[in-house]
Each structure stands twice: as structure tokens, then as C-alpha cells.
């Protein structure tokens, strides 16, 4: 049983973080506003979860200005994709195992 748990990634163990990763897995990138609308969370809440994922180098943050307005794009890193896939298969195994 223990070896199953080891692949469960603590960094993804939250509904909002799972949501962020899911969106970024199937889209080239997403903007802050898009993520916020899709997940239905507040700015502060989303920002803190993004920061956590960024700290692990699972997502890439790209800041730029469009018509003088700040615009932030998020995308997954190779590492993020790999870790997320591992996490999902760990979840699937756990469910099957029980």
C-alpha cells in the first residue's frame, strides 16, 4: 500500500491546483481571468495556488503588457506535465486497488 501513496503528489492534493493543472494540460496557455472564471475562485485564492505550483516549477508564468494593461499567461512546464501524469495514474491505481 505504501508504494501507491508515494506517487501521490502533495503539491496537487487540492481541488483548485488539480483544476489549474487540468486546464493547462489541454490548453497551450491560459490567462489569469480564464482560470478564474473556469474554476470559480477569488483572485487571492487562485494566486496563492498558482504561486505554489510555480514554486515547484510545474507551471510557467509569463507577464506582458497588452495595450498598457498587464496580462499574465500560464502554461505547464515539461516537469509539471510529467508530474501531473504520474499523479493521475497514482490516483487511478489507488481507486482500482481498493
Amino acid at each position: 500500500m505504501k508504494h501507491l501513496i508515494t506517487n501521490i503528489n502533495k503539491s496537487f492534493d487540492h481541488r483548485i491546483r488539480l483544476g489549474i493543472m487540468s486546464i493547462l494540460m489541454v490548453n497551450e496557455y491560459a490567462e489569469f481571468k480564464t482560470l478564474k472564471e473556469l474554476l470559480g475562485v477569488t483572485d487571492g485564492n487562485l494566486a496563492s495556488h498558482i504561486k505554489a505550483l510555480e514554486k515547484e516549477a510545474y507551471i510557467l508564468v509569463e507577464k506582458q503588457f497588452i495595450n498598457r494593461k498587464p496580462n499574465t499567461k500560464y502554461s505547464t512546464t515539461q516537469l509539471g506535465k510529467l508530474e501531473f501524469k504520474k499523479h493521475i495514474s497514482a490516483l487511478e491505481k489507488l481507486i482500482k486497488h481498493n
Partner: protein
Amino acid sequence: MSDKDYLKDITDIKKMMAKSSRFISLSGLSSVYTGVYALIGGAYYYVKEIKTDSFSPYVAISIFLIVSVLSVITTIYFTHKRAKKINEKAWSKTTKQLLSTFSITLVIGTCFIIILAFQEKFEQLIPLVPLFYGLSLIHAAKHTKNIVKPLGVIQILIALLCVLFIEQSFWLYVIGFGLVHLINGLIIYFKYDK
């Protein structure tokens, strides 16, 4: 976390992936109406032109344009209505991606068709309409639930048949733009909309 939570995680992940990348507000009714408009247009052309042996290409083009404009308006209307019903935004990033991939192929095709129309090469023009329409649909299908892909494949088959049997192209258009849209719309309506 218990099993149930993990299971919920997986379903949440799937849902979020689908919601963020697929355009699910496309209503089957818009396809049904497109089919009906095309059939009415076809019937009008049959009575006015084919029965009287005049076969005017300009009447055919006018009918085609009217049918297309009506279909686009209907599609926009039903998409809005359906998006509201299932509580989703009609004008999302996926919509923009869908429209841009759809229109790239369509614009290229339209340029070809307009040039051929001005050169009055109507026989060469006929198969190009379903061909480019089909290609645009297949190209855009990755942003939908893939209900659009079979429609695109059928349009391309119609285009090939138009090249082979140019005399039958009126009936091929009636089948391709009329009947196929109608049936496709009904399938989508009963499978996804209900």
C-alpha cells in the same frame, strides 16, 4: 482523503479538461435549421430554374448566399440560447479558437470560389464549395466534441461526387447541404442537447 474523494478528483479533472478546451454549446437545432433552409432554397431553385430549363448560376449563387447568411444567424442565436441554458459563456476562448480555425480554411476557399465565379467557370466552382466547407469543419472539429467531424467527411465525399457526376450536382447539393445537415442536427439534438 478517502476513495470517494480520489474518484471525485478524477471526474473533476476530466470535466475541467473538457470544459476548458471543448466548445460544447453548439446546438443541434442550428444544424437542423441549416438543413431546412437549404432544402427550401433547393426547392425554390428546382421549381423556378430546373423546371423551366433556365439553370441560372446567378440565381443559384443568390439562393446559396441567402441560405448561408440565415444559417449563420440561426447558429449564433441557438448557440447563445443553449449557452445560457447550460450556464456557460458562448463567447469564450474556445469559441474564438473554433471560429479562427474554421474561418482560415473557409476564407481561402471563398477566395478561390469568388475568382472562379468572376471568370464564370461555374462547373469548376461547384465541387469546391462542399470541399472547402468540409475541410473547414474537419479542421475546426478538434474544438468541438467531434460531432462536427463526420459532417465534414460527408461534405468532402459530396465534393468528390460533384466532380464525378457534375450533372447531378444540384441533387448532391440538396443531399449535402440539406438532408445531411438535417439528419446530423437531429442526431446531435437527441444525443447531446436533450
